[in-house]
Structures are given as C-alpha cells and as structure tokens.
C-alpha cells in the first residue's frame, strides 16, 4: 500500500553562518528539489535556518543501540585523553 507514498527524507539545518547543520526532523517528498522546498516550509517558518541539507532516509546508516556498550565503552577508561588528567604545577602559567 506504500506504492504511492513519497520517499522519506531527513532534514538538516544550519541555523546561522559558522554553525554546523543539525538534524531537525524528516518529511516526505517526491524528489530532492521538493524535499528542500518542503523543508523550507516545514522547518524554517521563523528564520530558523540559512541553509538546508536533505538526505533520503534510506541512505542513513546508524550504529546499533544493542552494540552501544561494546562500541562506545572502550573510550570510558581512557581518562588520560582529557587535559584534566594531568597535574600542572601552580607556578606554571599558560598551559
């Protein structure tokens, strides 16, 4: 029954120059041009953006939440990657 449904697109918006594009939601559109136009109408009615990216949702590949422990936890015990791990003598400035 989904034959007639337009494809789903994910929408990313740059809120102002100098900031990165951020995911804001999704919408349906027949093609990329229409997706950008629809994103303008749906997600930027109040000057929320200066640039829009759209990506057809089927092209997004995501990490699996079931694997997130094995995937992300190895970073948890490497405190030496953070500057606060190191003690700097009080008399040392500019470090």
């Amino acid at each position, binding site marked *: *029954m*989904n034959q*007639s*449904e*337009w494809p*789903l697109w994910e929408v990313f918006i740059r809120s102002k120059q100098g900031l990165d594009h951020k995911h804001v*939601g*999704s*919408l*349906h559109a*027949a*093609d990329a041009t*229409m997706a950008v136009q629809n994103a303008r*109408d*749906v997600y930027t*009615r*109040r000057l929320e953006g200066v640039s829009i990216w759209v990506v057809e949702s089927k092209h997004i590949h*995501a990490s*699996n*939440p*079931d694997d997130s422990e094995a995937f992300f936890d190895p970073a948890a015990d490497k405190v030496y990657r953070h500057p606060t791990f190191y003690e700097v003598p009080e008399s040392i400035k500019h470090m």
Partner: protein
Amino acid sequence: METLEQVLTPEEQFQARIDADVRIEPKDWMPDAYRKTLIRQISQHAHSELVGMLPEGNWITRAPSLKRKSILLAKVQDEAGHGLYLYSAAETLGTTRDQMLADLHSGKAKYSSIFNYPTLSWADMGCVGWLVDGAAILNQVPLCRTSYGPYARAMVRVCKEESFHQRQGFEVMQTLCEGAPEQKAMAQEALNRWWWPTLMMFGPKDADSPNTEQSMKWRIKRFTNDELRQKFVDMMVPQAEFLGLTVPDPLVKWNEERQAYDFGEVNWDEFWAVVKGNGLCNHERLQARVDAHEEGAWVREAANAHAAKRAARGAAVAA
C-alpha cells in the same frame, strides 16, 4: 562478574531507563505496548493538528482585516507544520504516513473532539486561540519531557510556535471586549460556547481513564487529565475576569483552602457522544479531510511521475 543488567528482564531494564529519565530513541528496544500506545497517541495528536486547520480555515476569507487574515493564515500553516512534525515522529516507530491517514479517513483513528464544534462567529477565532490553544499548551508543555525522544523534540518545536497562537486569540478577544456592546456580547457568546468543550479536551476523569496509570509509569504522560483541567481553570478564570467576561459555570468559585478554583461537572454524556462521532461537525470534518486527500491524489501521482522521469533522464546522461 554478573552485572545488574544481566539479571533484569528487557522490560525491567526499559523501565529502569525510564525511571532514570533517559530518553528512548527509535532503534532502542521497547515493549510492544509502549510502541503501540505512542503510535496511537502521536498519530491522534497529528490528526488533531490536521483537522484543527478546518474550523479556522473557515474564517480565513472572512477575517475582519488584512492583519487578522495574515495572522490566521500563519496560524493555520503552523497547524499543518505541527501535524507534519508529529507524523514524522510517529513514523520513527514503524508505522507509515499512508497507514495513519487511512486510519484517520476510515474513522478508526480519533482526533481531538474540540474540532467537531462549529466556529460560528469571528469571536470563535478568538476563543479557539485563547482557550483551545491555551488548553493545548497545558497538555503539550509536559510532553516536551515525554520519554520518547522524537515525540519530545517535535513537541519542543510545537510549543515554541503555539504561544503566538494563544496570544493572538487573546488579542482578538480583548479587541472585541473593548469594542461596541455588540462586539462584547459576541465575545461572551463565544466563551459560552467554547468553555465546556475546552474543559473536555483534557479527556475523561482520572477514574474513567484506564490508560493514564500506565502512561504515567512510562512517563509518556506527566500529569493526569484532572490535574491539567484544574490548572486550566485556575489559569483561565482570572483572564476571563480581565476581559470582563463571565465563565459560563455558576459553580466557579475560589477555594481558599485548596488555593484553586472549584468548578462544575463537565457534561460527560456530551463528551462521549462527540467522541463516538455524534458531535455537530464530526461528519463534515472527516468528509473535508477525505475530499482533500482524494482531490490531491493527482498531485501526488504527478510529482512521483515527474521525479521518476527526471531520475531516468539523469541515469541516461550518466550512462
């Protein structure tokens, strides 16, 4: 070493995350009933935004000034946008847009009963903004912290936009109340019509709302229907007084002990009649939706054909 997680069932782990206020995201494991409840609630919410355009759309061509017309157009466009944010959030749970629309059009899915009441005069536009959107905001603000991430994020957007809706409605009422006696009478009549249906927007009494307990446990809901209804009355009675209008309930009275207003009982027979499809405009609203969908079919098909043609042309150039 056996961790706590290993001895908990998936349901218990899920509830533990909810209790710790960790948001649930689309690909996370969730109980089927949680998914079903959310699909029902979010799609009903989306349908309400969509059908909610109709009573106000009724007044766009008859707005009393260009300013009011521009405001009303912007507001109705927002309602369409809110519907789209919410449909997208529901789709992350595995349902489709086509399925949700089919359920709306067949009458299987519900939408807020408030939109089954007619908008008879311009003052009703004031009441829809001031009262109906005011009630919607009370319902929606706690939903910005609901446990399902995409729903909460959609609600943050909706709430940001909704406060303009309420303020413009209040301004319409205030303008009428400061106008000629006939205009003020019009405002009072509209308040008389909308007061009780708005109180019904919060849903049945807690005692008659079997889903509330589970929804509170899952932190989909953060307040009960009766709690929100009380908040609404406490918020609105002073605003009506400011306008010089009388809330059509002789039992409304400040209760010093409770630090809240006492108020009369909603006509629950009317509430259930409208929910079951026997309100003044149920048939008209649904028919308008079905007609819009069917009359728009050729546009959707043409856009698909155009996209396919352009894709084929692009492929031919690349080859």
